């Protein structure tokens, strides 16, 4: 690859100045004349029939201007499956399910009126546990599951609580397992957690008297919001405009559609008045969206040469009351179910289960941190049981060129190298070449992989145009939610057109009426997709500039180059400044050629295919993979159970580092978010009544500056992605995927205890340490490996039912520990 001048350097963020001065305007900072304030009436029940909603008393509160209920708007929403109405109509499915909403002149009036809305409920038995939810005969969360509109690649099972089920069948799992020398089975769990963006969800909608709808919203995907609003309210796309101001963090929680339909419904009831719906921090926790919980059971069969030959993955996802977005997390976790490893024979099931809990959705990593929590602890356990170094065991079994993924996709040299990432982390942390081990001090590693989970036709586009002073303006509709997309887009253009960064303006707050189409800002796809679109646009701009430049200079296009804001004839060294071309070139005699130089360009993933419906086998199910690994060094305080993470080393194969300062920020940010879910975060839903027990930042802790690892180090491998812009692939989500598992593995190394349920709280560590001490006192077999609870068959009952044909015959007990 040729040398780059601007791509690959730490140019400052193009939106930095407005953010450090407080000038950046977020949705909540916008002032709209005569704006109304909304309050949403939410279900206090996890599961209940709605018998009646009475709003007459609420309407009498002075200042109340509009009220909306389910019967007013019996419309379905949801990105992959339209299983949700704007307001519950006859049934509420989680504590927080919207039942009605009011808009008033003041927030106080709206709040007062909301208390006066009377709802008659008839409580129903609630499903608050996925294992209960999947049992035959369990109460149904969605009795109408068979009637919903569902995208073709989502497969719900009407008559059950299963909202999606993806099966992966590769090779001959049962035959291979029968021949394995060692078999291990373990179960791991992950609770629901919340994104906790610093800016809570907020949307402002206005419907004017001509019927035109305008929505200002904190969202990751203006065009998807518009598209789904149009579907929901049966409006033409031309009558709905979605505007996204600066967004204060998303992490997946602002993907798809969220508060917008509530705002639009109220705005339709109060024509001409802007209506603002803002989630309180408490609502943010339980009433917007969360990350799904996971119960994962893994079976790993290893041959005598320590190669995994057979691998079963059984993932049960706690999708909550609605599956609109979460069903695709289930799917992504299915076709990625083996993580960063080459498993020749695979039996995978990824099953989404409706429960009466907060609604699962996209969350940075899209299911990957959760499955890696299971996979990476499993690999570590197996390595320890087999007395192989965990690094060796990973290198022996990991994916790489000429290996196949669980869907049978053959990886190439350009697919990225997890082995190099493992080796780098090992080299820096000295995992294999370690010296004498200190008590309660340990090191661990975990790998990561993720592909963008998106429809095969997910597109991004850009509009590029020159202003009269040859300032290049780039309109994008990918959202800079902090990751640095606008800066990266400018860097690519600066590189391609040899322009200084300060000659480029990225117009980064899209309005769907004027901005180019973009599917969504999710899936770590924007650098890749918008980056490619920008490079393509630059080619066309160059073509236009050269066409006019050739005439102006009297030289053939082949002799021209674009440099230093000039079109130059390489032979004569004569040049014409861009400023003289960008709105049309005028010859000395006055006649003019050319015109305003502008273009649009797009990127659509190339050659993606659908998965086989029964086996998920597919040669190209995703656009790209990004691999990586993280290593952790920590000490455990045996008195308190607290962990101190001394070092955290990350390495990812990103193809090309576009901006070292930005990617470091992505990496450190992801690591710390991973530390959060790894050791402290859990949305506690009461197992009896389904109510959230810690819906505040007082009770739900996220990492503060005091909680970060003492030292974080980031390294990058650059194996170019063939269809990546200058070789780049995605990185945003991957940075938080392996962190909890790496911590768990280091904890085991430090003191021989395993925590299967995320998060690794001090309480759990202390309890496990005490249990270990008790057993040591009682003289039980407590060599380090014994603390691992790797089991021999039989598999969990649910697993066996699903894989009925696999009898345990031929499966041998794991190797004895005594040497």
């Amino acid at each position, binding site marked *: 690859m040729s040398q780059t001048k601007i791509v690959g350097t730490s140019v400052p963020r193009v939106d930095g100045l407005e953010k450090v001065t407080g000038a950046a305007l977020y949705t909540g900072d916008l002032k709209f004349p005569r704006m109304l304030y909304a309050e949403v009436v939410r279900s206090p029940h996890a599961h209940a029939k709605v018998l009646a909603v009475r709003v007459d008393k609420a309407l009498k509160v002075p200042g109340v201007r509009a009220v909306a209920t389910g019967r007013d708007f019996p419309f379905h929403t949801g990105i992959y499956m339209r299983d949700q109405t704007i307001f519950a109509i006859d049934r509420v499915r989680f504590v927080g399910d919207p039942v009605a909403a009011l808009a008033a002149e003041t927030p106080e009036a709206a709040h007062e009126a909301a208390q006066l809305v009377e709802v008659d409920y008839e409580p129903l038995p609630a499903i608050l546990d996925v294992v209960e939810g999947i049992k035959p005969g369990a109460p149904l969360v969605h009795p109408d599951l068979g009637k919903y509109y569902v995208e073709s690649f989502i497969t719900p099972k009407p008559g059950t609580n299963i909202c999606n089920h993806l099966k992966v069948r590769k090779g001959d799992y049962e035959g291979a397992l029968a021949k394995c020398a060692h078999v291990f089975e373990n179960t791991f769990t992950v609770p629901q957690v919340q994104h906790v963006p610093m800016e809570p969800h907020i949307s402002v909608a206005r419907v004017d008297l001509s019927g035109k709808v305008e929505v200002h919203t904190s969202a990751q995907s203006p065009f998807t919001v518009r598209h789904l609003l149009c579907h929901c309210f049966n409006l033409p796309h031309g009558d709905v405009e979605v505007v996204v101001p600066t967004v204060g963090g998303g992490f997946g929680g602002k993907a798809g559609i969220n508060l917008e339909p509530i705002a639009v419904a109220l705005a339709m009831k109060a024509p001409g008045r802007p209506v603002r719906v803002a989630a309180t921090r408490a609502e943010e926790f339980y009433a917007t969206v969360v990350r799904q919980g996971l119960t994962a059971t893994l079976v790993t069969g290893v041959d005598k040469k320590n190669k995994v030959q057979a691998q079963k993955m059984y993932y049960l996802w706690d999708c909550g009351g609605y599956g609109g977005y979460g069903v695709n997390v289930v799917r992504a976790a299915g076709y990625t179910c083996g993580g960063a490893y080459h498993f020749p024979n695979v039996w995978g099931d990824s099953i989404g289960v409706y429960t009466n809990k907060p609604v699962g959705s996209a969350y940075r990593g899209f299911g990957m941190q959760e499955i890696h929590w299971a996979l990476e602890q499993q690999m570590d356990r197996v390595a320890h049981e087999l007395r192989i170094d965990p690094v060796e065991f990973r290198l022996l079994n990991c994916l790489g060129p000429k290996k196949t993924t669980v869907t049978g996709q053959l990886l190439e040299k350009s697919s990225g190298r997890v082995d190099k990432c493992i080796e780098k982390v090992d080299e820096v942390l000295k995992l294999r070449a370690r010296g004498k081990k200190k008590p309660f001090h340990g090191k661990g590693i975990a790998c990561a992989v993720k592909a963008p989970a998106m429809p095969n036709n997910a597109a991004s586009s850009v509009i590029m145009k020159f202003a009269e002073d040859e300032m290049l303006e780039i309109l994008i509709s990918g959202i800079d939610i902090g990751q640095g997309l606008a800066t990266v887009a400018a860097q690519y253009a600066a590189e391609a057109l040899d322009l200084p960064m300060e000659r480029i303006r990225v117009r980064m707050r899209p309005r769907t009426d004027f901005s180019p189409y973009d599917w969504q800002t999710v899936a770590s796809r924007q650098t890749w997709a918008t980056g490619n679109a920008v490079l393509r646009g630059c080619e066309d701009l160059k073509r236009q500039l050269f066409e006019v430049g050739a005439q102006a200079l009297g030289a053939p296009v082949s002799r021209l180059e674009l440099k230093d804001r000039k079109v130059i004839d390489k032979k004569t060294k004569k040049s014409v400044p861009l400023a003289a071309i960008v709105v049309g070139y005028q010859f000395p005699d006055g006649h003019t050629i050319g015109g305003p130089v502008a273009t649009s360009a797009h990127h659509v993933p190339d050659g993606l295919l659908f998965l086989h419906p029964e086996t998920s086998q597919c040669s190209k199910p995703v656009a790209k993979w990004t691999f990586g690994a993280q290593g952790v060094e920590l000490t455990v305080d045996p008195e308190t159970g607290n962990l101190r993470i001394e070092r955290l080393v990350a390495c990812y194969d990103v193809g090309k580092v576009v901006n070292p300062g930005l990617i470091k*920020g992505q990496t450190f940010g992801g690591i710390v978010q991973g530390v959060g879910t790894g050791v402290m975060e859990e949305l506690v839903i009461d197992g009896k009544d389904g109510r959230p027990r810690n819906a505040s930042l007082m009770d739900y802790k996220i990492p503060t500056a005091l909680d970060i690892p003492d030292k974080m180090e980031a390294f990058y491998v650059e194996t170019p992605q063939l269809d990546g812009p200058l070789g780049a692939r995605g990185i945003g989500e991957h940075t938080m995927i392996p962190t909890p598992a790496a911590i768990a593995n280091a904890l085991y190394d430090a003191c021989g205890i395993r925590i299967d349920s995320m998060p690794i709280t001090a309480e759990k560590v202390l309890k496990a340490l005490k249990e270990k001490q008790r057993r040591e006192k009682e003289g039980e077999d407590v060599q380090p490996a014994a603390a691992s609870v790797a089991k021999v068959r039989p598999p969990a009952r649910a697993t066996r039912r699903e894989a009925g044909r696999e009898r345990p015959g031929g499966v041998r007990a794991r190797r004895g520990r005594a040497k």
Partner: protein
Amino acid sequence: MRHTITVRVNGVEERHEVDANQTLLSFLRDTLNLTGAKQGCNEGECGSCMVLLDGKAVNGCLTLAAELDGHEVATIEGLGQAGALHPLQSAFLKHHAVQCGFCTPGVVMTSLALLQENPKPTELQLKTALAGNLCRCTGYRQILDAIQDAAKTMRAQSKRRTA
């Protein structure tokens, strides 16, 4: 019940009638249209609304506007602007200490209060001072580096002033 207050905000005297229950944050955002301070939780947990009250960092959402009479408030809007940034703002740009930017005004104001009191904080003092400012994007590392860098610049500036 309404109170009349006279308060200096970023050096400008403001005289307003405020409700007894109006917060400093609402006074800044809704009355003065100074939207740099953000509302992230409205219960004193996230620090997005940190501003200086007589030089001390306070949560705007936990302070009542009625208490401001005769006092001085400083917000991000009074700190610096294009071409004349405060060393903290320049350092945040240089170190990529900004991502979504929602927490940035609060973090900058908290750091300013700390550095005015303790121009050479240790890493632990810095982390402790920032423990009330949540950031979900950056992982704090580049923020800490930026503040230390700014502290160095500010110490050099004050040395030059005193010399």
